[in-house]
């Protein structure tokens, strides 16, 4: 396959940045998108040019590091798939592919396609955990949890924190991420103890980081590589209201 790439290049946070066009020949349709980027970078290195910076780690769709906005959509055209699991067979020979970084003021560009997502870490630090005294883990079946609740908590916990929801949202809202993290704990008895405090602190931190507000377009759910449901956002709204009113 012959591919034309229009890639956002930006030296650092202070640089203005611009698109650069690259031609790549002999791209295998079986390559993942990141492997194709590797091929491009090797070519750039051979030509003594600066390789394109992009985030990646596990390359098996579970770490949440990869973060490219491909042809107007986070993680590219497929549903429920991270960039690393996207393959070149999803494109056609001769295609021009535009690759941009996540755009959100709360995700400043570090370099090229890599953005700083530590705002998510700060939201987690604000309350996305269960405080426990250290010691032996107790017998697993001491606390009985209905299967349905466990399933909902698990599907919320599938969030890998990649930020595609923020990237997809026209308001750069982080509510799908925050609501998944609120929900995975709020649904379980261990998490209920700190539920009120958690939702208030996490939402306050989310607002402080400068994410936008949810207007329920549900673009986040459609683009989430882990198919996190917007039901979680409604749950977070409920939890927040409950926490504020009681």
């Amino acid at each position: 396959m012959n591919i034309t790439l229009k890639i956002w290049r930006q030296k650092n946070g202070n640089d203005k940045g611009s698109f650069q066009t690259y031609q790549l020949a002999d791209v295998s349709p079986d390559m993942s998108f990141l492997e194709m980027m590797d091929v491009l970078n090797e070519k750039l290195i051979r030509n003594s040019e600066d390789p394109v910076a992009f985030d990646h780690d596990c390359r098996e769709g579970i770490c949440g590091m990869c973060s490219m906005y491909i042809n107007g959509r986070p993680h590219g055209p497929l549903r429920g798939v991270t960039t690393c699991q996207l393959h070149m067979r999803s494109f056609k020979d001769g295609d021009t592919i535009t690759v941009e970084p996540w755009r959100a003021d709360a995700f400043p560009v570090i370099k090229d396609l890599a953005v700083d997502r530590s705002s998510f870490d700060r939201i987690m630090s604000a309350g996305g955990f269960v405080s426990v005294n250290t010691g032996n883990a107790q017998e697993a079946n001491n606390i009985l949890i209905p299967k349905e609740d466990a399933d909902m908590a698990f599907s919320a916990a599938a969030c890998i924190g990649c930020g595609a929801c923020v990237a997809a949202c026209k308001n750069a809202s982080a509510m799908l991420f925050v609501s998944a993290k609120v929900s995975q704990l709020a649904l379980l008895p261990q998490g209920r103890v700190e539920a009120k405090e958690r939702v208030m602190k996490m939402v306050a931190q989310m607002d402080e980081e400068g994410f936008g507000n949810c207007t329920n377009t549900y673009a986040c759910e459609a683009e989430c590589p882990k198919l996190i449901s917007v039901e979680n956002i409604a749950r977070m709204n409920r939890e927040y209201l409950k926490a504020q009113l009681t």
Partner: protein
Amino acid sequence: MSLTKIFTASIGRKLAMGITGLFLISFLVVHCSINALIFVNDGGETFNRAAHFMATNPVIRTMEIVLFAGIIWHIIQSLILTRMNQKARSIGYAVSGADANSKWYSRWMGLLGTLILIFLIIHLRHFWTGARFTGLESGTVLIDGHEYDDMFGEMKIVFSQGWVVIVYTLGMISLAYHLMHGFQSAFQSLGINHKKYTPAIKTIGMLFSLIVPLVFAMMPMAVYMGWIG
């Protein structure tokens, strides 16, 4: 955290949009039902009586003030939210694939709302200011020995102009799309999302968004075309 804080946090502002939105929807139900009485086609007698009741009942009069407050609050919150949302992404994307992940009208609520506001100002100027302050062009009408404001006559005067019919129809199309997103969105913002009820809310919302604006749009059309008189 204090109660006032609720409505300044992100989720609180959504809540305010949802509550005012649903309140405005409830107003649409009342307004549409009363006005649909013109289709009784009795020369506006039933409608004029109903309009008189609405204009004189103290509860309705009080609710009118609440209604204006609701509209203003809805608009102010939307402006604040829009501003915040724009600030959250100061550098936009070069390529947008938004049509693949969301409905266009869910992304253009601000524009649709602005169109509705323009319609609303024209509409208030047509009927409300006359009925409340300056007096109706159509004057009054005698029904069973009682004098009533001739709201139906005013409708006939206003809707005899072709451009008004077009503007009202466009206003109702904007309203339909605004409601298609807004109806179900309000419930989501209030935290109501349930496997059993949400599909029903979405269906009802869709029907409501089509039927109510359609009934409204039929009014100027029916008067203009002379289907009722």
